[in-house]
């Protein structure tokens, strides 16, 4: 089995509204898999379904070759970790406390710290470069730092798969690249499968091994980066004029939206 996560014919919706319609795809083990698509395409819902926190009506999700429903909660938490888009900041736990919470699927109900937890905690904090913040309170950190704290927390779960919902959305360029590099490193060094929802097509082109393009709850295209990021598919999905050429940085596409004022001259 080379599939980390397989989604089979999943549909989701409430009432008459359909949010996801018959979605199927496979995430290969050890891949950097990025889900892109316009607003309201169901990306976040799809992420919640993969994280096991949204109950879907139809279909099946297999994780590491086993149906999601056969996992216990603790087992699932040791296999998949999730980093949300909106990270809460309305409490004053220290960075260390929050990162340590990632160990809870490996601990008893009271989350009492075990010997190996300290070592894993330290590793995760070094890896994400937040060890100097250990005793700072969460509500005193910047957005980028908080993001890294939550990533360190997810790493502490020792997952096989890590899911991230638009981790770069509210960050400046330097922090965006830093988060993406971190995920790339996690994939390369620890063999963790990374699944990410992103709005940034160019970051997706630079880092992604495989892409999934969603629109209105349906898959428009999936496959290797250069297969998905063509101007025909992208213009169809986003409904606007785009320029797709090769990035000066290497062998991957670059996508530039064309402003309205320039359209007349083409």
């Amino acid at each position: 089995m080379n599939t980390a996560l397989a989604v089979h014919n999943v549909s989701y919706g409430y009432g008459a509204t359909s949010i996801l319609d018959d979605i199927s795809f496979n995430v290969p083990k050890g891949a950097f898999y990025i889900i892109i698509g316009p607003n309201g395409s169901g990306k976040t819902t799809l992420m919640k379904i993969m994280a096991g926190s949204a109950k879907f009506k139809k279909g099946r999700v297999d994780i590491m070759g086993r149906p999601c429903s056969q996992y216990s909660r603790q087992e699932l938490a040791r296999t998949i970790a999730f980093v949300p888009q909106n990270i809460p900041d309305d409490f004053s736990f220290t960075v260390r406390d929050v990162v340590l919470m990632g160990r809870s699927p490996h601990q008893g109900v009271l989350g009492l710290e075990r010997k190996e937890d300290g070592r894993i905690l330290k590793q995760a904090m070094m890896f994400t470069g937040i060890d100097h913040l250990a005793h700072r309170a969460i509500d005193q950190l910047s957005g980028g730092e908080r993001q890294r704290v939550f990533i360190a927390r997810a790493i502490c779960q020792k997952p096989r798969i890590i899911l991230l919902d638009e981790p770069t959305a509210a960050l400046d360029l330097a922090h965006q690249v830093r988060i993406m590099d971190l995920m790339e490193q996690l994939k390369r060094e620890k063999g963790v499968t990374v699944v990410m929802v992103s709005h940034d097509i160019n970051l997706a082109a630079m880092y992604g091994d495989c892409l999934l393009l969603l629109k209105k709850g349906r898959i428009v295209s999936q496959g290797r980066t250069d297969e998905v990021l063509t101007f025909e598919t992208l213009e169809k999905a986003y409904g606007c004029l785009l320029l797709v050429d090769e990035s000066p940085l290497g062998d991957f596409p670059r996508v530039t939206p064309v402003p309205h004022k320039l359209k007349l001259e083409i």
Partner: protein
Amino acid sequence: MPKDVPIVAKRILFVSFFLLLLLLAVCFLGVSTGSSGSGFKAVWWALMDDSRSDPITASIIWNIRFPRVILAALVGATLSLGGLVFQALLRNPLAEPYILGVSGGSAIGAIIGIMMGFSRFPGVSMTAFCGSMATLLLLLLMTCGHSKFKDSLLLSGVMVNAFAGAIIMFLMSMTQDSRLHNIMFWLMGDLSLADMRQIRILAFVLVPCFCLVFRFSHSMNLLLMGQEVAETMGVNIRLVTVTLLVTTSFMVSITVSYCGPVGFVGLVMPHLLRLVIGPDHRTLVPACIIGGGSYMVFCDILSRVLPDQGEMPAGVVTALIGAPLFIYLLKRSGR
């Protein structure tokens, strides 16, 4: 202490030990305070069953003051813990059983129970529990799906409280029953009706609830990280939320059926303790139980000492301290 005991466990023991000393001190003070006035030494002798003790003093202490102090401690512990749980689950620093109307709801239930002539336990406690569950459901139904959940929750609580107050007054005007003789006093939180047999029942019911809440204390920490994150860390959100809400409402309604709705206790202690010992619920739960008990005993002492003649309901004191704190917190959270 052995070396491999986790830091959290050490912290829990340290905090509990310190607060326990405080509780014992306040209880001793509580047992020594009263209209018949007796020195600390006489109280000590009476408590230690010393031969030098005066039998009348001993009788006053054992039959009147001691049950009252224990009742105050149990009620304070329950209400503080209730505030802590509501604040964590509803993600609202201002949530508290009284402010949300849960106490008001159980008061309606309790009054109906009293009017039907039930005994305090289990009869009145059960009708009070039904009342609190009904208000809790009403509150959650009214606020679910609101984007400004925090504000709408408080507003709904205020309305539920006003409505509960009206129903209580309505019920009271409907009956001339002598059973409702002390109802006004009871409505402000009255601790003077304590006797040892009732307190034994109360403790027997409440202590398992405290343990149950403590079992879920780490889940409350994880829940603060957000629902989805908590779920992907293995928390069964539905189980935790339902168990905690039902347990808390149950505890609160039992205390309401014994001594009326005492307000704002669940606001003061959780906030104070969070400031001092941090946000970890594994230490906060035991700290709120012991600290809340001490706070309530202290308020009860004030309610006996402050008036020139007789005494006032303990709820007056807690409201005098708690309401300004509520306004302060409201102002700060708005910023």
